């Protein structure tokens, strides 16, 4: 009986929700193009970076670890558009491959963190009581320690590496943003349909997944997009200090790092271009995130 009812519900629900979300998505894109020129520019930068990261092997003129001792500290030329570094490696190629590391870490950490933040936030709001109190005090304690100190401490204990950096950034991002998601989920919980679903005998899991989650989805998307730009910066800061993804993998932060400072006096382009790439990426993600926030949830405007 129940399964038949579910099947009917599913059949009825699927086409309508399908078309609704599709047209909503389309509408957001149309409004992005019409109303948000900066957001569009951001989206363009983000897409370009994604393309560069995916096709790095095809685009980069040289390998990222291809050294040449005869070509050290060359200024920009036809062979090396952005010049070369202390080992004669092509700076442009390293920046192109650096896109890959930056995006892998920030997208991966955002995905992981959003999942974790949603899990903490929604359950915390749904169950309330002692569980919520305990979780919130833990979040308080976590937030009391400046993020960079905490991340550096954990990574120095775990050891640097792509996976560790990604996991630790994701963990921290999730814990920090769980509060925003919890706030949104709390207000959703007050709605009569949640009570109705409970009265109907819906299991906790079902209520959280099919009634609460879709209603906080907009905020989760906003948190994730705005977090992306920030995570690129944090990853770069960690690499800058030598606690990010270790060499030979090129990272934007690592190229600017303190260890390379003495070379920059000889070759100022080493100090300039990785920073330009970094700023452009953060700018792109910020503008795209801001525009998406305005379009999806205007109430959040002015938060940052």
């Amino acid at each position, binding site marked *: 009986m129940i399964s038949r009812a579910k099947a009917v519900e599913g059949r009825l629900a699927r086409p309508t929700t399908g078309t609704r979300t599709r047209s909503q998505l389309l509408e957001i894109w149309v409004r992005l193009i019409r109303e948000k020129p900066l957001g569009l520019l951001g989206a363009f930068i983000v897409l370009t970076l994604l393309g560069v990261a995916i096709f790095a092997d095809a685009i980069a003129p040289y390998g990222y670890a291809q050294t040449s001792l005869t070509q050290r500290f060359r200024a920009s030329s036809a062979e090396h558009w952005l010049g070369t570094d202390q080992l004669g490696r092509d700076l442009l190629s390293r920046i192109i491959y650096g896109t890959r590391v930056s995006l892998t870490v920030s997208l991966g950490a955002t995905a992981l963190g959003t999942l974790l933040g949603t899990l903490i936030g929604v359950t915390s709001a749904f169950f309330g009581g002692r569980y919520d109190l305990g979780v919130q*005090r*833990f979040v*308080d*304690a*976590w*937030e*009391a*320690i*400046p*993020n*960079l*100190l*905490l991340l*550096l*401490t*954990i990574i*120095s*204990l*775990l050891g640097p590496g792509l996976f560790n950096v990604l996991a630790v950034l994701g963990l921290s991002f999730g814990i920090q943003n769980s509060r925003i998601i919890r706030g949104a989920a709390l207000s959703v919980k007050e709605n009569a349909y949640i009570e109705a679903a409970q009265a109907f005998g819906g299991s906790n899991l079902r209520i959280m997944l099919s009634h609460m989650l879709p209603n906080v989805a907009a905020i989760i998307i906003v948190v994730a997009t705005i977090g992306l*730009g920030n995570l690129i*910066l944090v990853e*770069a*800061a960690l690499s*800058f*200090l*030598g*606690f990010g993804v270790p060499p030979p993998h090129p990272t934007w*932060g690592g190229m*600017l790092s*303190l260890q390379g*400072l003495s070379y*920059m*006096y000889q070759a*100022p382009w080493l*100090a*300039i271009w*990785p*920073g330009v790439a*970094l*700023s*452009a990426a*953060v*700018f792109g993600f*910020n*503008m795209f995130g801001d525009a998406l926030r305005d379009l999806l949830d205007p109430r959040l*405007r*002015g938060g*940052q």
Partner: protein
Amino acid sequence: MREYLLKRVLLIVPTLCLVTLLVFLLMHMRSGDVVIQMLEGYAYADTVEALRRELGLDKPLHEQYLAWMSGVLQGDLGRSLWTKEPILVEFARRFPVTLELTLLTIIISVAFGVGVGVLSAVRQETWIDYLGRVVAILALAMPYFWLAILVVVLPAIYWRWTPLWTYVPLSTDAMENLKIMIFPAVVFGASRAGPIMRITRSAMLEVQRQDYIRTAWAKGLSERNVILRHAIKNALIPVVSIIGLQIHFYLGGTVIIESIFRLPGMGSFFFEALIRRDFPVVQSVNLIVATFTLLLNLMVDFSYAYLDPRIRYR
């Protein structure tokens, strides 16, 4: 008012207890492997057992925690493995540097952010506004450590100018000290001014549309009076809250800024200890900085109450 403040102060106690637990557990997450690494890299003791004994790792976990906490409460943070000096002594030497840097940075970012933000809102949709907004967006996107590197490297190449590298304490020579501190503070402050500017602008725009501002204009007050005496105070409330949210950025950033500008503060203390795997120091700095963050946040809450009487009397 008193009740509100008291409640805020009391709330810090459980958070601080949890912070100590969190820091402690983090440091003991992989203590086994870390001890071996410390021994291999820096030979802090003759054998693994000796180092474990020195760090107190041979005792059960809860005893270690209680021993550490009773030390902390008596003002004994242990000794640095590297310098063998009590951590508290080094801390007392370095803390004023970080305090000065942080306060200067906050002052500069607020002065710059609020100034440009107000100007941008008052002259909405003019070139001043557009310029201000572009600067804010750029400040948000440019990482402060990149800005710092540029300030250190480029003038040295093109003008043969470098920031002063030898630190002079504030108590020795205030002018010399300020000459050193001003560059890191301006670089770091400028990068943090972006969000403050944006929030000031939007808050000012909102306040300007309110009735009491129209009344102030109708009374024939000068623009200077309307903006400075009536509008700004209300627009500052969200600004204060954004400063509160940013305090951990200000303090976390000292790790990078102090390392680039070679300032002997808490941030570089932490970073040097991290590189030397001097974990007693890392643990203590985490705790101290967390306490400091909580206290600064408390100050932000107090200034809220000062700025907004509605909070005071609730």
